């Protein structure tokens, strides 16, 4: 008798061994109880009220930028250059609202890298223009395209607007300059359309449906993307690296929008605001990290983490607001303010990466090995 008991125990064991996949399997059983947090609703809010509208708005800007570029290329003039510059700035600022969503198609085509790796390589760009042989899909061309490359092409070629326009008119290689400029804007528009179309044609539903708690689940992935963006691209890229936090000396040539100069602060403020808005679930405050933390806190009775994080966002914003519009100026005159801004952003990295991820029980850049 007992032998059979033992056998049945092993049978159950085997079945469970076979049924529990390493990753916990896809979760298609949305929790419906009132007393549990609805991750599906959070994903839907993220997709429908933040991510897709942001990409839609940015795609429109990228299209306008492309048209303005074509207008300038067809009729290079100081006036058309200034018009192009305005639209470049507008879409560069708006890009800050989509930069953090490095998921799905955007991740596949390295959207953020292809649109905003800086400092851009002027020599590489000049080389491409000179020999006309380049493929912007290659990873090696990452620092010769996107907004920073456009920055060089419309702000950095000469000291005055007339000098810049000369490159597109009387320069011996003017047609190549025009061609490269056109390709840059077209690429930005095309990549953005690819990402938005993917969201509109199925990816949105797949994203919202994937409420799995595993590392491949949407919540886990986007949380990691969000924090990675805030830590590496925003805190380090926009402030820390140029302010010399990671080097022996300051590196003002590494500020965002180096050739335009006076919009670095504007880009920073826009991106902090975008991160804060995402944290709070958009302007209308739908389900978000904030409401998720609030829900978990009803179980935990711990510190009010969501409020602490929001307060820290505000402190960082007000600090960033005191900076010079031109970070190269700020670094040259009073780099201490840059470091202070970095420190306030750093505080939020710790709150997001250590405290929030612990509360949500999400692993940082998950490595799938055993724990005990």
């Amino acid at each position, binding site marked *: 008798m007992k032998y059979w008991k033992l056998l049945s125990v092993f049978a*159950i064991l085997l079945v469970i061994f076979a049924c529990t996949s390493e990753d916990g399997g896809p979760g298609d059983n949305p929790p*419906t109880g009132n007393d549990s947090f609805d991750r599906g609703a959070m994903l839907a809010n993220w997709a429908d009220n933040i991510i897709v509208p942001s990409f839609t708005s940015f795609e429109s800007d990228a299209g306008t930028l492309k048209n303005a570029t074509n207008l300038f290329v067809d009729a290079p003039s100081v006036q058309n250059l200034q018009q192009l510059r305005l639209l470049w700035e507008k879409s560069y600022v708006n890009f800050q609202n989509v930069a953090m969503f490095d998921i799905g198609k955007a991740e596949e085509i390295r959207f953020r890298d292809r649109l905003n790796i800086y400092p851009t390589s002027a020599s590489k760009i000049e080389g491409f223009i000179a020999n006309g042989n380049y493929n912007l899909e290659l990873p090696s061309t990452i620092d010769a395209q996107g907004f920073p490359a456009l920055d060089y092409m419309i702000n950095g070629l000469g000291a005055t607007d007339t000098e810049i326009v000369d490159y597109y008119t009387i320069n011996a290689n003017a047609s190549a300059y025009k061609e490269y400029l056109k390709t840059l804007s077209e690429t930005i528009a095309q990549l953005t359309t690819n990402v938005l179309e993917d969201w509109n044609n199925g990816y949105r539903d797949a994203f919202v449906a994937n409420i799995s*708690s595993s590392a491949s689940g949407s919540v886990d992935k986007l949380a990691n993307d969000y924090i990675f963006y805030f830590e590496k691209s925003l805190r380090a890229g926009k402030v820390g690296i140029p302010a010399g936090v990671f080097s022996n000396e300051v590196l003002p040539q590494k500020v965002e929008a180096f050739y335009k100069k006076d919009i670095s602060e504007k880009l920073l403020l826009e991106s902090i605001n975008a991160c804060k808005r995402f944290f709070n679930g958009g302007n209308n405050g739908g389900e978000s990290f904030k409401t998720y933390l609030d829900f978990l806190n009803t179980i935990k009775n711990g*510190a009010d983490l969501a409020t602490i994080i929001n307060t820290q966002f505000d402190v960082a914003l007000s600090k960033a607001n005191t900076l010079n519009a031109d970070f190269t100026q700020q670094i040259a005159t009073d780099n201490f303010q840059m470091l202070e801004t970095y420190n306030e952003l750093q505080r939020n990295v710790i709150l997001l990466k250590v*405290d929030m991820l612990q509360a949500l029980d999400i692993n940082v850049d998950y490595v799938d090995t055993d*724990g*005990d």
Partner: protein
Amino acid sequence: MSNIKKYLNKSTSAAPLAVFRIFFGLMLFFSIVRFWAYGWIDKLYIQPKFFFSYYGFEWIKPLGNITYILYGICAISALLVAVGLKYKYAIVTLFLSFTYIELMDKTTYLNHYYFISCVSFLMIFLPANSYFSLDAKLDQKKAFSKIPNWTIDSIKFLLCIVYFYAGLAKLNSDWLIKAMPLKIWLPSKYDLPFLGDLLQQEWVHYAFSWSGALYDLAIPFLLLYKRTRWSAFAMVVIFHLMTRVLFPIGVFPYVMIVSALIFFDARLHQKIIRSISNLFRIKSNSHISYFEENVKKSRSKIPLLVVSTFLVFQLLFPWRYLLYPDELFWTEEGYRFSWRVMLMEKAGYAQFKIKDKKSGEQFFVDNSDFLNPLQEKQMSTQPDFILQYAHYLGEHFKSQGHRNVQVFAESYVALNGRLSDPYINPNIDLMQIEESLRHKDWILPFEDEIKGF
């Protein structure tokens, strides 16, 4: 005294130890194959630039591509142990190769790997090949149907220590009064069928915490006592399968379930052996001699001496944390090798400042240039990792031509849902600190109190 002598001379059926040997060897074999198949050898032992070694075992490092051969040796010796061929050599090789693997990088430290090292060490001194083994079949002189009782009891004793100490460790205020860390871990399993919603309930977190502690403390006694044994075994199965479903703990639950069989008497193990014989068509007359009263007498006192010393060591070693001031969970001084299993939730962030002492020039390090995400995660919450990494960084930047190198850590740790606090004293140049077993006074004090073990 005479009682002890009587106990030591007592013999018992060799079947339970034979079954244990077979399952232990097979489990280990599959666990190594699984590890290999997932590509973890490459990811954890080949790719990283830098490995965290154990204090005193700095000379043990991964061997590049030879690491695969090491795993191969380990897997083959596990199979040899299972079938009981050249057992003595096989078990020694298994112990050495497995332990070497575990000592290569403490990033991957797991209590259950330590458990496997302990058991395989123990088994070096046990006559596990006396019965139903190829050794016994090929050489009748090695075949015995009865072995000293203490040999089987030593495994039971080790298992009891593992469970009971794991239970004791749970008797602390975070676990029992705050239901931490289960309050963090369980709600995040919202997508489990049937259980998902339940795991959001506070009472469930308390029920799991308390029953988990109670289970660990009581199960050794319930398994030892004959009348509760079957229900205890059912609890073992349910408990470990539950942990398997809730947490990513690999093959450990199965190892523990199979190990618990050792508590049953020999009749059950005879049945298991008979069914294995039937399955593989092993002719019963080939091991008929085992059923003669054929008692293995140990000529040497050494096995008994080693095993009893080892078990006393196991009893005492987990208490070394009492020698250190401040909170164990915070400093982790004496945390490993003490059966503290799935006990706390700790997250951290550490960045390192490289400073030129003379010029005052400084910069921060990007950890991802040197560590993989798992290493960075483990490093950021454990002081001995932080110190070793700081020294590595210091040496690295010296070799890059930097001079007067000082290394400072700025780090934050959140423990069991508390808000993150500064962890390592940021004003201490870690290059000036040498690793030792003394208390690390450069860890900032824990700003709260956790009562209990």
